[in-house]
């Protein structure tokens, strides 16, 4: 029940990834990815407080998934 649940749901999410394969996106094709609402964490001001509140009311482990990646690909 535990891990299998996660795997099944992950696979549904990942199916998009596998289907699209390794589409090469050129550096100049990332206009949409650069938009702030496409950031992994679109509302960072909300995240910390929400994480704190959920964490104090629920027993789940938490990991921060907003560690970067995606975005405009700029240097």
């Amino acid at each position: 029940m535990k891990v299998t649940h996660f795997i099944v749901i992950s696979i549904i999410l990942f199916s998009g990834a596998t289907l699209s394969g390794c589409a090469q996106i050129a550096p100049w094709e990332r206009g949409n990815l650069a938009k702030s609402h496409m950031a992994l964490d679109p509302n960072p001001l909300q995240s910390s407080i929400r994480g704190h509140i959920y964490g104090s009311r629920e027993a789940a482990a938490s990991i921060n998934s907003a560690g970067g990646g995606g975005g405009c690909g700029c240097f």
Partner: protein
Amino acid sequence: MNAPHSAGLAQHSVDNPESRDSKVSLTSSRKTTLQALTSAALVLPGLLLSPAQGASPSNDSVSFQYNRYQEGKRNLYNVHSNLKPIMVDVVHGSGNFTFYDRVKFSFSYTQDTWSGATPVTTAPLVANGNRPILQDSPQGVITVGASPLVQTQVLLDQNLNPLRLIPEGGKVIDPRTVLILSSASPETRNQANFRLGYEWNEAAVNAGGGFSLENDYKSSYGNISGRLDFNQKLTSLKFGAGYTSSETSAILDPDLLPYVTRTAYANQIERRSGSEILRGDRQDWTANLGLTQVLGKGSLIDTNIGYTHSSGFMENPYKVMTVIFINPDTLNPGSNSSITGDARALLEQRPNIRNQLALSSKYVQHISPVDAALHLNYQFSFDDWGVNAHTFEADWVQPLSHGWTITPRIRYYSQDSADFYQPYLISNQAFRKTAIDASGRQVWVDVNDPNQQFFRNGNDNFFDANGNLVDATELNLRPQLVSFDAAKLPQNFSSDHRLSGFGSLSGGVVLNKRFTKGVELEAAFEYYARASSLKLGGNGQSSFADFDFYVANAAIKVDMEAINSRMNKETGHNHANHDHGPRHAHGAHSVPAGIMFGHMLDNPGELMVGYRFMYSRQAGDMLRGAHQASDLSIVNEGCSDITLCRFTHTEMNMKMHMLDIMYAPTRWLNLMIMPQFMDMDMNLRQLEGRPPPVPGVHEHTGTGGHTTGGVGDTILSSLIKLYEIPGHRLHAGLGISAPTGKVDLKMRRMFQVDGGLFHFDMQLGSGTWDFLPNLTYAGTSDRWYWGAQLYGVKRMERSNESGYRLGDIFQASTWGGYQLSNWLAASVRGIYTFRDRIHGDFNEFNARIGPMDFPANHGGQYWDIGIGVNASVPSGKFSGNHFAFEWVQPLRDDVNGFQLEREGALSATWHYSF
């Protein structure tokens, strides 16, 4: 039948229980410091690794945020409780700065203050745990009831179902379980974080750390994290590790103490001045690994795995387990007779090790036709406590025109119960019974020498272990009692409903408005409902703990880079201008940090965002007028004719955070809004020569101090330029202060006595609408600057909702300063303050224990000197930032009545205008 039964979950058939009177004793509220419940007990700030700022570079920015968390009432069934549900006020400030190109620094500061009623244990409803609080007699302080409800008796049938007596006579099974609530005085937590990072073109590392401080819980942490980009940044690998060390030192509730069995923690409890302090240490190690992959021009996926290993004291020191002990002799399966269970409270016992693994994945898709972003998030976590949890979340981020963005969001969460969670336990043994030796004889002991055993023969004569008869009249013999066998209880148990199986559904919306000036406003609301029945697969079986809450917040974010680039754009054709242009002629705007309303913006359309921190401390001698007062004079004259003083404060600290937003619609008019957030703490001592305590009346002693905090009053003001020639300026301020701060904060009930309203100085605002007129003159010449201000506060109402009115204030100050360099200035200020006494008086119960509780002991005349420095960043990317500090040192106090001496005050301000 030796194993404890998980009551409340037991299946039962309704039979016809016989009637018997179950006299269940009642209780008061409990708990001194409950802070660990909301903040640190379950979530450790250090475990949330700081994000390695991603491929999208973070801008230099400053933000302020206010949050309100408000819980709904818990379901107590038939009991009408006047306890207020938990409410938390959170103030949060943060900043991100680029030190040099690739070196980034960020910090954040959070202060939360919370109060309200929280569950301490769970019990069968028939145990009447939540007794409505009886009102005190007109004389005030009398104790009501004696035994707390955590120690009570519960009637059970032979299948161990709780029985309820019904008015018509007889008993019915009542399987309902209920949370037992207790209220708390306000508690404050402070947390500070920092992070330093370095960025390469395709990698980043960060090191961070911080601490979280509460009265009873301290935590400090450090972490490192990093990111590696591959494949032209289409793929990013992220990793992090952190360590947190925490320390609990919880003052166990003196009300509850006599009724709580804490033998399991005997060697962790320290006794100090009548209090028992439970200490425990805890360590947490955490590591995570993540991968972000761009899938297409409008989609990306992010996966993370995180592992946390925790060891040490993970209990909530304020949670107890209700264990119903039943005498095995009274069990008679098949019969109709009922059993009387002996319900006792034991400090909860959680395992000392916890390993948690969390897996998360997030998918982000751009919805081109409407330029929206869909964020889908799923997380699964499991641990060796048996808590498997699933979180699903969907956000739709929709940009609208004119800089608006709206984000509706929905979240579903479900968790399994921890292996050791039980609402309450039933143990098939007596809590305490008379000792019987191996040969079946009852054991007696001498109270004065408990190691020597005695026995009784058939003639009621006592003899010792060697068979020699003894004279019982010379000894103080009692039957020896033995406590329950802890080995017959489970090794771990907790009735904390956050470890039960449940589900929750929440939804909300975030509204965001970006102004061209680089200022962003954000507001959000979220409603959350916990329901046992929402658990995945059903069978939550903890519906008695269902509750809901909402969170609302408002935030302002100032993006300095946007401002700088706008400045560049405006000066775009003035190419030689390297430093974003002159902002302020220095000196002209220097006023000491302690002066409010001293600065005006010059240019129409100009906006200023600022932050002001003020700290003041009272400690040292008690004063009467301008001289030191003896304890005896305070006892006899500090309070009233009928009540002598028993206590006085030894120290009082007040901290204020103020946000300062100022806008200049025209050259001669500025508008300001200044919300305030307060927190204060006070310590008390007994006065020498105080009247002895009245038997049966307990007094709150302030042991360990007490704190209050939250939103203070909000100031709205206008500044009007009256006169200006080069080097001289005169402006007037007309402001009002709106009573947004509470003046009805109460201490929790202790020893079954109402705590009553907090002292006047510990309330968060004035409670009245106040008028704030002021007049400021400022002059400059070359490197010198000087000025003077007259400042007043006039209360515009007769009394506030608690029946009193703070005194009016008049203050005059004058200062002179010198610009030491192009960025630094120093000043000296002289201050005279008159403050009237408090008028009116509390219209509700206040304990009246010392001079601070009497209106006549407030106000006076004060003389101070202030030493200040002002610093401003003249050029470069941080130009436009101004900092000021001032220490105000008291020179002379002439107080009304009896008051604690002032030690001084610190003001610190930051402002940024653009």
